[in-house]
């Protein structure tokens, strides 16, 4: 069975991103197809967040190419961003604003009409159980509520691609369940590109897993090989094994 349906929406072609002369992305190549759920998995510092930042045109890349919706990402090509729903690991919301004010502005910046913004806002507040907090300033929200607001902001314009950088970090079990349930609803309806350390969650969600190391894709694992969730997790973990020495090898710590 081939999971790669539809058109190629995201394509990294030998992309290199340097930071202080050190390659953070090292000839990175991968593609994501329409309505696919793809997870980018790797240890800390492997370049996941930089991949997202390059994809969203937040930082420039030095060599290679990045294509989104068939066009090359350049500092001038920014119109595609209105088709993306972006949730970064660093929240970029306006902390002084209430949830309602913030989401209203986001909707307007996404060219929605005021009436449309109002309707969608009400729906999103109900979907994310934020109705009771809607007039609270974002800076006073818990990390769970803050993540819900970020996802709501990413969805208000009904994007074609949802990009989620570490959406489950620092969240309690109930919030994780709510967010997972919501993301699952987009299965086969939207393209979802997600980075996460939480294998338990992404294994059930995604069609493909891109295992990243030192700024490049080490291997790609498909979720269509008849493996159970446990076997799939073990297979992914096998590629992420730490190469550092064990505690036993340090005499004074043992």
């Amino acid at each position: 069975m081939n999971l790669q349906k539809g058109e190629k929406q995201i394509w990294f072609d030998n992309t290199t991103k340097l930071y202080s002369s050190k390659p953070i992305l090292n000839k990175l190549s991968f593609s994501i197809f329409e309505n696919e759920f793809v997870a980018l998995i790797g240890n800390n510092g492997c370049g996941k967040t930089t991949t997202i930042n390059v994809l969203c045109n937040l930082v420039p890349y030095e060599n290679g190419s990045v294509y989104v919706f068939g066009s090359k990402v350049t500092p001038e090509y920014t119109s595609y961003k209105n088709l993306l729903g972006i949730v970064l690991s660093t929240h970029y919301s306006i902390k002084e604003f209430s949830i309602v004010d913030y989401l209203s502005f986001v909707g307007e910046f996404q060219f929605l009409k005021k009436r449309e913004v109002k309707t969608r806002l009400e729906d999103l507040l109900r979907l994310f159980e934020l109705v009771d907090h809607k007039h609270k300033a974002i800076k006073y929200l818990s990390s769970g509520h803050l993540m819900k607001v970020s996802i709501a902001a990413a969805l208000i314009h009904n994007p074609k691609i949802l990009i989620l950088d570490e959406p489950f970090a620092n969240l309690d079990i109930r919030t994780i369940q709510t967010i997972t349930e919501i993301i699952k609803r987009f299965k086969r309806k939207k393209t979802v590109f997600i980075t996460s350390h939480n294998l338990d969650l992404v294994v059930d969600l995604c069609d493909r897993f891109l295992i990243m190391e030192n700024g490049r894709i080490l291997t790609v694992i498909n979720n269509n090989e008849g493996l159970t969730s446990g076997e799939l997790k073990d297979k992914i973990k096998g590629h992420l094994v730490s190469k550092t020495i064990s505690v036993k090898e340090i005499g004074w710590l043992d």
Partner: protein
Amino acid sequence: MIDIAILIRLQIKLMTKGDRMLYFYLFSIISFKILNYYSFTLLWQIFLAISNLYLVLLYSRDADLKIFYKIFNISKFKIHTAKICIVYLLSLLQIVLLVLFSNEPDRAIIFIVHFLSFYTSIIFYKVSDLLKLVVLIGSFAIISLILYIFPLAPCTILIFVIVTLIIIREHNEPSERRKANLV
């Protein structure tokens, strides 16, 4: 154009958060009341300094929104245009305040020229070092000329220089932090 209208609303809403706008206008009203009562020039200088610092706050707060602007495709041109519109609106309010509380139209004109030349220097200082220098010297010369024609205490110039330095510091430091966070 729609973007700019939304941006103006966003900026005004931002300024009203944390009661900055309220404090600013309360301060201006009180300082002019006292100024009128005592005819005390120093208070006038303090008022100018506070006005400038208010603009610093407008810009330093904006630095936190850089990623927000990038995500939503809002160009620097639109952001500056929105801010220029806000400054003109603020200037209009300042004229009303000055006419209402000081009854000194000469000073109102000086203040507005000071305000706008100062704001121009903020807009252009990051274009290039050379242009920044030219604009700063130009603004400085304009203010000095106006002060020569309409004498006020020379410490206004000092305030202008200090506040400009604060803006440069405010702008540079957070941007470095953001660069580090993004990678």
